[in-house]
């Protein structure tokens, strides 16, 4: 990536691109005149928060808009073809053949009814680039280059028979099928674990370099874009903030907004004094073995959570983090072991717990969208626990709701009668926090509360949680797969793998060597802002 790509011929230009979206029966502009130039073989990173218009601009590179959107102005020229003037047939001829698209969720983008190979062969055969036999041979070759296991036979599996990371690589291979000049990657690793993300990133970079393909790489993760892109363009609410090549952008961002993005990862919780040895933990998980059906998902899991302390439970998906939370809340009855709350045993089934026991342990969910009833107003959403547990009525209840809204830094008069659909993602998550607080609990489980949010917003949520903890002496169990979050908020860390606790201890010890090999793998897989990080890491791992 060191050679300069800007002297190569231009592949794609967008001039003053304007896109409108339809909302409430009127058209509103969502992309306000973006200019973009992409040279052959160049990788351009598009970054920004959700709603910045990254995906919309990415799709427009194919002359395509989502339902309910339209291109209202500007021009898009791909290799001399004006996509705005071209007929739909011409554009269809380009798509899949010369411009390909890799979606965020491969699991949702593959057709579950067809084998990978059939879906791979569709584009090249349809476009008349290869016949079926050639396409199959080519697929095996690409699967091998993508370092998929058993490349000869993996194509004959159905999408549900391969893992998420493999599926994402298979999708990238599929995008390469016609050897396109341009691939649009729309957050291809966002849904993956850090350890899997590395493999996909390496595979994508490898193949893009081998075939000298140009790419637009859309992501909200700065560290990822630093590894992938030659140039970075920052978008904010449909406008360009700035554009520069990766190294100078990372070294010296010009605009304030870009600087704030860069600074996000700076939040760190102050070191807490060690807990007195004789102190009774708020929650004590003791030797829990639990599972669904005959399979044990958790094996002998134990850890303590103290007042005013945050315990981060870390691991990949499938490691049993969320199952642990389900056991603590009583949704899943363990086979063995028990949960102690303030030293007293909790009934294993939530239906047998008293109202007060239920009140003491609250939960904040990952997806605020599904955690808030879309048909209830904020007043009812956060008023209900206060009404139920504390018996507040009428004026006292309204007062309490306003109070809670102030705590989560939302203006009460503005928000009290809104529906969840009238809030942004971060605001919804704040309502989730307020709902938990309304019960005046001692202990809150935060299940990946920031993973669906943009970094700036997530930062705000973490700070808020931190503030509330000191104010109300809360104990947190913080489930996450993101080690940056752990660094920011945890006092203690529990690393889980395949239902077992691999390592646990105070944060300061966990981030210092020596590590358990798995912890080491997790730690080293977190992308860093250094553009050479991936190259160095891969060389290091190969050397071993």
């Amino acid at each position, binding site marked *: 990536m060191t050679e300069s790509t800007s002297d190569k011929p231009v592949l794609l230009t967008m001039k003053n691109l304007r896109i409108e979206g*339809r909302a409430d*029966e009127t058209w509103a502009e969502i992309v306000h005149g973006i200019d973009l130039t992409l040279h052959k073989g160049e990788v351009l990173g598009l970054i920004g928060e959700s709603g910045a218009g990254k995906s919309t601009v990415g799709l427009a590179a194919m002359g395509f808009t989502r*339902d*309910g959107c339209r291109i209202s102005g500007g021009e898009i020229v791909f290799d001399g073809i004006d996509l705005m003037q071209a007929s739909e047939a011409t554009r269809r001829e380009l798509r899949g053949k010369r411009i390909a698209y890799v979606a965020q969720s491969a699991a949702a983008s593959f057709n579950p009814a067809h084998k990978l190979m059939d879906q791979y062969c569709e584009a090249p055969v349809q476009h008349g680039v290869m016949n079926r036999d050639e396409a199959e041979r080519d697929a095996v070759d690409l699967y091998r280059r993508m370092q998929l296991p058993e490349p000869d036979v993996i194509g004959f599996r159905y999408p549900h028979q391969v893992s998420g990371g493999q599926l994402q690589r298979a999708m990238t291979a599929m995008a390469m099928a016609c050897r396109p000049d341009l691939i649009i990657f729309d957050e291809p690793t966002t849904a993956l674990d850090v350890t899997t993300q590395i493999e996909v990133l390496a595979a994508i970079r490898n193949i893009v370099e081998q075939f000298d393909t140009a790419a637009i790489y859309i992501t909200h993760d700065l560290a990822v874009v630093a590894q992938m892109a030659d140039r970075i363009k920052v978008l904010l609410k449909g406008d360009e903030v700035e554009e520069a090549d990766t190294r100078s952008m990372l070294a010296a961002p010009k605009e304030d907004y870009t600087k704030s993005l860069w600074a996000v990862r700076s939040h760190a919780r102050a070191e807490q004094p060690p807990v007195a040895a004789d102190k009774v933990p708020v929650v004590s998980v003791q030797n829990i073995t639990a599972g669904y059906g005959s399979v044990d998902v958790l094996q002998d899991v134990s850890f303590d959570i103290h007042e005013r302390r945050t315990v981060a439970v870390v691991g990949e998906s499938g490691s049993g983090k969320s199952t642990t939370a389900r056991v603590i*809340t*009583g*949704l899943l009855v363990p086979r063995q072991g028990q949960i102690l709350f303030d030293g007293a045993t909790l009934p294993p089934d*939530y239906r047998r*717990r008293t*109202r007060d026991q*239920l009140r003491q342990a609250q*939960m904040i*969910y990952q*997806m605020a969208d*599904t*955690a*808030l*009833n*879309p*048909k*209830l107003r904020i007043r009812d959403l956060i008023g*209900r*626990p206060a009404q*139920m547990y504390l018996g507040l009525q009428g004026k006292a209840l309204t007062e309490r709701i306003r109070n809670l809204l102030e705590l989560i830094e939302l203006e009460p008069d503005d928000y009290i009668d809104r529906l969840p659909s009238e809030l942004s993602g971060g605001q919804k998550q704040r309502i989730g926090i307020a*709902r938990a607080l309304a*019960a005046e609990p001692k202990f809150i489980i935060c299940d990946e509360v920031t993973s669906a949010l943009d970094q700036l917003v997530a930062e705000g949520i973490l700070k808020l949680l931190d503030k509330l903890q000191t104010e109300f002496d809360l104990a947190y169990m913080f489930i996450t797969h993101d080690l940056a979050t752990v660094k920011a908020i945890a006092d203690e860390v529990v690393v889980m793998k395949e239902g077992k606790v691999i390592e646990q201890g105070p944060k300061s010890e966990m981030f210092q060597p020596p590590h358990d090999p798995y912890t080491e793998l997790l730690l080293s897989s977190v992308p860093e802002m250094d553009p050479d990080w991936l190259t160095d890491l891969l060389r290091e791992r190969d050397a071993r």
Partner: protein
Amino acid sequence: MGFLIGFLWFVAVIAACMAAGWLFRTIAIAVTPKGVKKELRTAPLTASFGMLVIIIYIIVAVFAPLIAPFPERAVLGAEYLPWDDVHLLGTDNLGRDMLSRLIFGARNTVGIAFATTALAFLIGSILGLLAATVGGWLDQALSRAVDVLMAIPALIFSLLLLTIFGTSILTLIIVIAIIDSTRVYRLARSVALNIVVMDYIEAAKLRGEGLWRLITREILPNAMAPLVAEFGLRFCFVFLAISALSFLGLGLQPPMADWGSMVKENATLIAFGDITPLLPAGAIALLTVSVNFVVDWQLHRASGLKE
């Protein structure tokens, strides 16, 4: 030439309907409160026309004794009189005024269909939501019972039950409501099954909410859209079922005016090229089409589709 005139008539009627719909919507937007106004603006002309027709039917049904020129059951003259100034639509096979019976028929047929549909929804949606929320053996028991009821063809089953229990209006309503509630049950259950897995239901359960509150506050509001749409469709089916039963002689009993039996009673006239017996059928068709126009609009809104 005849074809051309027919076609022009067709176009004229459609245009008139749409114009009526437009006029209705304009007036409705002017007189309704703000929240309703915004919703009405999204109504296409077809839906406006549908609403207009439904409102006219309701007015006719409610004020039937005031609107109808003659009583429902009085024999007023010779049979099968042609249309004239006294009997605007002539008389039927017993010499009763056709227009008056058509107007009273709206009251009987529409009223009973509405009561039946409401009852079917009450039974079906409560049981469906309950089955989805509680799950386990209750779900199994209810669902298998519904399967058994659905395995028997609806028309034959209702004929059978009506023969056994007699043909009073009450049994008619109950029998059709129970048969139709099985369809509502299946819909309510499948919609609720997608809702009970949401995090906010889990949160409500963990909060310690009771079953009734869980169903009425957390699940039902989110299941409303498909249920309302289904209500419109189900209403049409019930309507047709009652008319079909009446046509077969097991629905509303004479001398009550009912659109289904009115077609049957006067069917002889069709052979003479008179369209009078088809007017009740036309009234049924117009209402079902109108209801579906409105339902389509609501479904479109509920599904959140743009364009």
